[in-house]
């Protein structure tokens, strides 16, 4: 049984397009083009083809001639992928295996600036920013700490950050 058939009453099927059929008709074709014509590895070709299918799903009404569109999309994507890959230069192994050095000069000025900026704020703002930026708390965690909703906590953090920026100038 196909994926779509299993979900006969799914929201996907209610979109009025047989995505399963479109997938079967075009994804293997795209993978073949990527591998044969552009010499992209099979796994990368599959990733690109699935991503293109996802782009198609997000706005299928853009596509009138599906075959031409998918062929054009994979050719374009492969060229972009190869261009990007050509620009990437691998780091030598001695650097890859080394952890990033941590020099006080790298982080100290930032931390001092942050402290000075915090001193211009209310205690609630200081707490929100300290939790988020220095201690790495997520927005829902801050909301729990401050006994408020995540939406308000998010607003609070962004407002306090703006205040800090304005007052520290």
């Amino acid at each position: 049984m196909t994926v779509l058939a299993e979900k006969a009453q799914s929201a996907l099927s209610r979109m009025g397009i047989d995505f399963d059929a479109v997938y079967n008709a075009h994804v293997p074709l795209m993978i073949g083009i990527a591998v044969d014509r552009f010499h992209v590895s099979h796994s990368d070709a599959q990733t690109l083809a699935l991503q293109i299918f996802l782009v198609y799903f997000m706005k299928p009404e853009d596509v009138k001639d599906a075959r031409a569109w998918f062929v054009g999309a994979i050719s374009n994507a492969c060229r972009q992928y190869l261009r990007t890959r050509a620009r990437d230069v691998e780091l030598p192994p001695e650097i890859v295996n080394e952890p990033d050095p941590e020099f006080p000069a790298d982080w100290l000025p930032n931390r001092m600036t942050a402290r000075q900026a915090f001193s211009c704020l209310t205690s609630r703002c200081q707490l929100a920013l300290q939790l988020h930026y220095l201690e790495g708390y997520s927005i829902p965690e801050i909301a729990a700490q401050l006994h408020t909703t995540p939406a308000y906590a998010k607003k609070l953090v962004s407002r306090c950050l703006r205040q800090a920026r304005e007052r520290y100038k």
Partner: protein
Amino acid sequence: MSIETKEGLFALMEEIAEEREAARPIVEQLLASGEPLEDIEIPEGWRTAGMVLELCEAATALSDANPICSLQLQLICISIAYDIDVSYPAIIVARLKANAWKEIGFTHFVQNAYEASFHAHNTALAQLSAEPALGYEQAKVVLRYGSVLIFGRRHEEALRLVESTARIFAEFGDQDRVAVAQFAAAVARHHRGELGVARKEYESLIPAIERTGQLDTLARLYNNLGSACRDLGDRSAAAECYRRSKAIQLELGNLVQVDKVDWGIARLMMVDSDFVKAEPIFRRLRSVFLARRMPDDAGEVALDIVEVLVATNRLSEAKDMTEQAIREFREAGLNDQAITAVHYLRDLLSTPQQARQAVKRVRAYVEKSKTEPDLLFLPFEP
């Protein structure tokens, strides 16, 4: 969620399709309620890709008719899109952010905010550049960006961009967008002053644009063709093109575009010295543009009204209108040179024999200075 397999991909698509279904009535309700959308608190349940897609679609539909509401919806889209960063694959988030920025760019363009529009389009392109699978979306943004550049008087760059997108759309087999890109190239040539070439290109594109079924684009094509014909002195052809354009836009309910066509029609009336008919149209357009926060267009219409008033020998009214235009241009942040030019016009209105020519000169200058702030205003030579 992984999209490395067909099953993973379809599960993700199903999830987004469900989110869209859930979002649809919320968006409809949001629009019907008429509530102000600024500073709206976004409920947790709205933070989905499906909601962004639905909001974006609603905002796009409104970008011409109600740019203010469209912009507010787009800002909600952006806010959610940045918030769901980690919940979806990077390609989806990039596509959502880029689409919202592209539409924000278009709304800014409708509101005459060209610099803001350029920035929004650049942000959209930056989102797309890291994802090779988003080449088609990239071409759509570049086409839109190129079209905005035309109005920013960066014609060469605009032509280069829109022509490059025509090639990309051809590769995707999208003949409709190839035609739209060719239309944009014709507009660039029109704005560069190649009226004859532009007219021919517009005329040759009519069947292709008709085939796309995009009535709005067809109406814009007729409107542009009308302006080219008017500027070439073929007034009957211009009137017929404007008539067709207006009929389509009325049918579509695109009121902003109807007003833009009316503007062309009123200017055509000015060519025929039909001031009595042109004046009420200009006055209506001015209040409409002001209400829609399109200050530059409103200011330009004010100068059209000044021209009518000068032509009908109502110099004191013309001076009052010029004063008003100066105030509005200042509030709209028009550059000092342009404001000086309008001041200069006010002074010149005391000499009726030079006034009409001065109005035309200043209006042309103000139009150009929006996008060429360094352009010098050369005083009218007696």
